[in-house]
């Protein structure tokens, strides 16, 4: 079969169940930009990785919670640890707390990512510094599945200051500072799920403010984010 692989590039091999899961995902309707925010489902995701280099480090785990109608559905969370060929460096283990054994006994990456695909179901994916999460998830997905999630990505790093102006001179606030500002407690920083939960609470605050300010569709949010990106670039 190596000639086939060479012919189609390195197309990953999926078993029947995985192929079916991917097909099912593709069948899901895309979420249009014009969908009203009320009733929209957001997936707030956070990843843990072997390091901070988006091009070379590896995705270790994904944690996510669902925000629907502005409500965090605590009963419908998501967390997975992707099986690694070898454990990450011990300094890194100290950060995310996923030990070597867990890393090596995690879920098969293709299955883990397909589960995440099914979970997100093309809903907008939100994170803080979600650009990083996006690259990590897309790279891993490309390797394991040969495709990437078809979701709109939203970054609270831009959305939060767009709605709650920080002091003009200050550098952009980090996640911890935002959480502190709104009194959101993070039970376990650097645990993907706990981070996702705290980030989801930040999203609740942002959504309430955006809605109060007149935002009514997903497109309104992406526009807010883009404007803030542009502002930060010219600053």
């Amino acid at each position, binding site marked *: 079969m190596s000639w086939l692989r060479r012919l189609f590039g390195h197309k990953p091999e999926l078993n029947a169940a995985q192929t079916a899961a991917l097909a099912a995902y593709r069948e899901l309707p895309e979420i249009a930009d014009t969908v009203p925010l009320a009733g929209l489902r957001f997936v707030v995701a956070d990843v843990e990785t072997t390091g901070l280099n988006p091009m070379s480090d590896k995705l270790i785990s994904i944690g996510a*919670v669902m925000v629907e109608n502005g409500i*965090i559905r605590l*009963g419908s969370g998501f967390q997975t640890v992707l099986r690694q060929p070898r454990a990450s460096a011990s300094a890194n283990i100290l950060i995310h707390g996923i030990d070597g054994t867990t890393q090596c006994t995690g879920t098969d990456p293709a299955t883990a990512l397909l589960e995440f695909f*099914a979970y997100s179901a093309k809903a907008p994916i939100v994170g803080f510094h979600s650009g990083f999460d996006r690259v990590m998830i897309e790279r891993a997905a490309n390797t394991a599945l040969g495709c990437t999630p078809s979701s709109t990505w939203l970054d609270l790093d831009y959305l939060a200051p767009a709605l709650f102006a920080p002091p003009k001179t200050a550098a952009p606030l980090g996640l911890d500072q935002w959480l502190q500002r709104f009194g959101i407690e993070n039970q376990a920083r650097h645990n993907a*799920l706990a981070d996702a939960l705290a980030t989801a609470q930040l999203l609740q605050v942002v959504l309430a403010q955006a809605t*109060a300010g007149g935002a009514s569709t997903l497109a309104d949010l992406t526009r807010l984010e883009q404007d803030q990106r542009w502002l930060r670039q010219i600053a």
Partner: protein
Amino acid sequence: MSSPANDSAAAALAATTLKFLRQYPPFEQMEEQAAQFLAASLDLCYFPKGTVILAPDQSTPPALHIIQRGTVQVVPFGAEHGGDAEPLSLGPGESFSVSALLEQRAVMAPYTATADTFCYELAAEKFPELLNRSPVFREFATRYLASMLRESRRLIKLNFTSTTGEQQAMSRTLRSLITRAPVTCPPERPIGEALRSMQESKVGSMLIAGSDGRPLGILTRHDVLDRVALAQHDLTRPISDVMTPDPLTLPAEDSAYDAALLIADRGIRHIPVCDGNRVIGVVTERDLFALQRISVRAINRTISAAQTIDELCSAAKDIHKLARSMLGQGVAAEQLTLIISTLNDALVRQVLTIEGEEFDLDGLRWCWLAFGSEGRYEQTISTDQDNGLIFDAGDEQPDAARERLIPFALAVNRALDRCGFPLCQGNIMGSNPQWCLSLAEWRRQFESWIANTNPQALLNAVIFFDFRAVHGEEALARKLRSDLSQLAQDGKQFQRQLAGYALESRPPLGIISDFVTESDGKFRGTIDLKKNGARLFTDAARLLALATGVAHTNTAERLRQAGASLQIPDKEIESITEAFFFLQTLRLRSQMEPEATAENANRVDPAQLNEVDRRILKESFRQARKLQSRVALDYQL
């Protein structure tokens, strides 16, 4: 969509939630399984500062809220009306509104986020399951119950004001208030003729209208006094001489409230209502008054001023309306039944006065007696007549006096029937020669009951032991009472019999289910609150009162006074009377249901009650059981 990835996340999130909950009561004490169920069932919501999270105009809260972070404020009920209650601030770990969810009703005051607030939410449909799973939480929720007996009254108030709301009534259009075409005449009509047609059509005012129906003037009964009668105005002159020209009018689509304002503002009593230029009716102060709460004083005045039985009939209807509105205002059953009884007494007295004028009763000293619930000052809405007469014939033979009194009593019984107090099925009425007796005869009657020659006769006669004077020579009734008191205290066998009677009916508490209800028939699933509820208290109270020489006939008073001489702790008596009044309140409520009939008026389906009322009902029956076991113990039954 359940995969290991979902399950492990849900478990992890629930663990985080649980860790939070465990810091606060009652969750810190909550049974592990229940707490895990709770933690796994929660959502997390966000309310920016200023959000009204729950409001009284909504229905039952959609969820139980447990504050995770932030502050929620609630202004206690009544505080907005100048009460001194401070607004209540709720912080992390506190939940709201347990009582609204228990009672399945809207909150009584808004819950507002006074800081950016995160709340865990347990969907309302899972709330009963939490109660079921956790005795600790149940206990926590039940602690509200103590204050809820009081609260329950307020609830009734809310329910009733929403259906009979004054405000709602006052927003009705004037058109909807007009019940008859206006009585009008042309301006040239002679005064005398106009006054005659006012009298014939029984209206308080004459409208003077043009041929096009436009109101030109008005003349009220009040005006007649000084403009016509005192001024000795020529009655053949046209009415335009004495009318108030160009009266103030209101358009038909204005509200009752507008009319009330105008009346208050200008001090006028009659307002012509116009559709375009045409007058279509007159709204009077009286019409508006009827919309508002009928006051006790006003009814009392109407009753004592009544000259005919017809007028009393309408007053009797007002008593009914008043009872409804007072129940709506949250007046406690004790006061409410007392007020109803007092007004009914006034009505009976007026009936006796009106009818008394038709009969020659000279030289007779008599007193009208009330028995049963009326005798106990516990009249609810649908009550049959239970009355009798006691007289002092003086030199006359009792039979001769009776012969004079009975036609009078018959007229009174019939008049009362017309006023909405149905004739007694058992013929316990003053017009029955058997219950129209001289003092000596009554005494003998009670003696024979107490001497117990016929146990069944005694049991049929218990309501007589609740007699009291309503009108007439009250000294006769007092003398009878003191004689009876002595007889009853000495009659040990009689007391034992009454005790047996008091234990005949048992509280409908089940061993497996909460309540024992009718198992079939058309009242399947219901409890008779009279026979299996209130009666348990009245029977026991009667026995205790008679045994201790308490003259009062009111159940609560009997319990209090007898309780004092039996050295039952006040607290215990208070719980018992509270329980009795709760049953009375439920009866009143059920009697005021639109679909209430004579048959179902005392029936309640426990399944239809909200959680609070159901619990209080259960507790009330427990109190009845307690009272009964005391009787059983005292008389070794």
